[in-house]
């Protein structure tokens, strides 16, 4: 069989069976296509349709569960308030954006770098990969407590090590208490926790690149640098973009660390959108307002996602 396999040119996936145009083949293909997708689609539909309708209705209601007043229809008022009058919403959005952009950029660079390094080690890397993966395995709740100790100004190991390394010249920062560095400290916990995620995805992607492509590139006399950009990156791009997308989406959910380590402070420098949504939803029980905030977030994330996916499609078209 091997001799019949054509080496693809590093282009996007072709679609099997496309060569055959018989009607029966096409309908069989369609039924397989639908059959495969059905279990997942039905599961999602069954569970998400009610919450979605429930929340959509709430967007237009004022329903304050802390009082016994009944829900009332308020039209677009919730949306208008979130968008034009709620400074806190936008401040927390900005904090989230900083964490998202900074976090994803750092995680992607370190993660890709690590994956490339590990990739060269071959089977010797097993233990290393497992070690690097530990941060994602630590529940955010547990990680939050560890960082509260590590970042402690007087009793924390981080400042102690800094003090030793600078021979007592510098005692380090009050990592989570200093308004100037608190957000950076939170960003680093996120980098620590989620870099391994992108690392493993890229590593898995690298493993799936057929060796023949590299061999072909080498035969063509490409330098390793050229090979990386012309063979590896285009092939990995779909997976990397989805990895980035998932991380970007999840940074809207960054919650536990904030909750446990800073509580959103000092002041509001580390208050993320998920923390603020949590307060509105689960402390204030302002259900209508929470629903409005949720949908606005959904729209913003959708726009971000569309941007990435369009970029992905463009890339695919170009190759």
């Amino acid at each position, binding site marked *: 069989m091997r001799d019949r396999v054509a080496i693809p040119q590093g282009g996007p996936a072709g679609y099997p069976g496309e060569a055959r145009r018989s009607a029966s083949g096409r309908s069989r293909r369609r039924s397989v296509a639908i059959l495969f997708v059905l279990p997942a689609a039905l599961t999602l539909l069954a569970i998400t349709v009610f919450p979605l309708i429930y929340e959509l209705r709430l967007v237009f209601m*004022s329903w*304050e*569960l*802390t*009082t*016994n*007043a009944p829900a009332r229809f308020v039209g677009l008022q919730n949306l208008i308030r979130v968008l034009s009058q709620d400074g*806190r919403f936008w401040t927390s959005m900005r904090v989230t954006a900083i964490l998202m952009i900074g976090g994803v950029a750092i995680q992607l660079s370190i993660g890709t770098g690590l994956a490339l390094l590990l990739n060269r080690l071959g089977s010797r890397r097993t233990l290393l990969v497992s070690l690097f993966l530990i941060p994602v395995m630590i529940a955010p709740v547990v990680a939050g407590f560890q960082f509260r100790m590590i*970042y*402690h*100004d*007087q*009793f924390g190991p981080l400042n102690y090590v800094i003090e030793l390394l600078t021979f007592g010249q510098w005692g380090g920062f*009050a*990592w*989570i*208490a*200093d*308004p100037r560095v608190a957000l950076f400290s939170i960003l680093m916990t996120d980098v620590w926790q989620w870099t391994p995620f992108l690392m493993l995805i890229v590593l898995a992607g690298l493993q799936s690149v057929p060796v023949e492509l590299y061999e072909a590139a080498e035969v063509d006399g490409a330098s390793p640098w050229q090979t990386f950009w012309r063979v590896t990156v285009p092939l990995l791009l779909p997976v990397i973009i989805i990895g980035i997308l998932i991380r970007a989406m999840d940074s809207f959910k960054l919650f536990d660390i904030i*909750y446990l380590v*800073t*509580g*959103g*402070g*000092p*002041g*509001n*420098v580390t208050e993320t959108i998920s923390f603020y949504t949590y*307060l509105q939803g*689960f*402390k*204030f*029980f*302002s259900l209508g307002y929470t629903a409005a905030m949720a949908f606005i977030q959904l729209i913003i994330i959708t726009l971000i996602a569309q941007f990435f996916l369009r970029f992905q499609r463009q890339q695919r078209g170009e190759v």
Partner: protein
Amino acid sequence: MKRASLVLLTLILVLATGLSACAPAPATPAAPAEEAEPAAPAAEAPPALDVVKWEYPASFGGVTINLVGDAGHNLKPYEFWKGDFEKVGITVQIIEVPFEGVYEKEKTEFVAGTGAFDVVTFYPAYIGDFAGNGYLEPLDEYMAKDPAGAWDPNASDVLAPFWELYCKFGGQVYALPIDGDVLMLMYRKDLFEHPDEQAAFKEQYGKDLAPPETWDDWLQIGEFFTREAGETLAGETLERDFYGSAEFAKRGFSFAWFVNRWAAFGEPYFDENMTPMVNSPNAVKALQNMVDSLKNAPPDVLGYGYDELRDAFIKSNVAMVVQWTDVPKKGADPTQSEIAGKIGVGRVPGWEVGGQVVHRSLMPVGRVVAVAADSKNKEAAYWVAKHVSYDRSLEDVSTALTGLDPYRTTHFTNPQAYKMFPTAEEAQAYLKGVEAAMADGYPEIFIPGAAQFEDSLDLHVNKALAGQETPQAALDAVATEWDETTDKLGRDAQIDLWRKALEAYRTLGLIK
């Protein structure tokens, strides 16, 4: 290699079955079977003290009471007194919720009307929410039942601020206390009494060194005790920096340390018409005092929550703090504390108002238990609540096995029960301090929307502390947000509830 995925799936399957096989068999909903499991070692319990008189009611005939509360040692009393409950035919089944999630969990179950709980443990700031929404059963009728020995929770014994403000709502009793949280002053007795320090203070400020009576004193003494490493403190050279005072300056409860400073002026949170008083000149002065005090605090004070503030004190980093009353108990334990035997306690500082100093100490958190309105066994549920709130309460608050704090006169008149203190005198001094703090007790906001009002206050107090806003701007912002919240929740209804709250304030003399 084509079987790779199959092998993989099999592997996961084997792993899954293997692991769930190692684990104990899944629990069936039949709870009594679990209760019989001998796995748990017999719970360590404090000895019964029998200081108060109580009696068993007639048996309830084998009912199960579902009790929800924040997980951890504060649920231990239900294990301690399991035998008592069994005697009257009650099995208490505990549902533990992490401290962080108690309100969300209880509220969600109430909103959905699941009837999952009979007895609910909650923080009294939510009494307006829970009682006002009809989730809780009014208790007056149960309290008056015969015989009194079995049913009367002896409310007159509970310190008045806690009872009037945290257990009643709209004139009716809805909850019984089990944990009397209040803030108090604690300071380094050894430093305040050291002759060198006393002399130096007298020279510098022209008056005697004594625990701070007013918040101005707090700043002065704080400044006095703030020293750098290498300087001398109480005759010894300091190895690391030492600070005069520290605050709870992290988001969460920083507002409480502000209210301590503000409440003494006799201004409630709102006036009769729900107009916020929080940006009054006195309030601004109070917040300015708190901001100024950070100069005398450790550099990471903006990260201080309960634990950090406690550790700063008992690890000998600061000279004085205002803290919850359980800190001296831990401070008396030499294995954890560097200042065992050196802790003095007193009233939270105040302000001079009309010729005399008025003190107020906030009662943040605290715990009360109530009976759910949709419980099917209300009498039994009530008795469980009453049993821990009164009959066995001295045992529960005096043991190191729980984190519960005293709230009744009988808790203050029995120092011998508090075994964590090396001497009865130390226990006595501690209890006197707590009793005085409780008598100065000042409530959190406890009308519906409390969480929202307090979050606004905390956010802006914290912004002022972090230097993001001036005290005036911060408190103006709070006032605006409070008005918005009131409008959102329904101004007329809120005014009604707040006027009832003000009556309780008046009864207690918190306002004129």
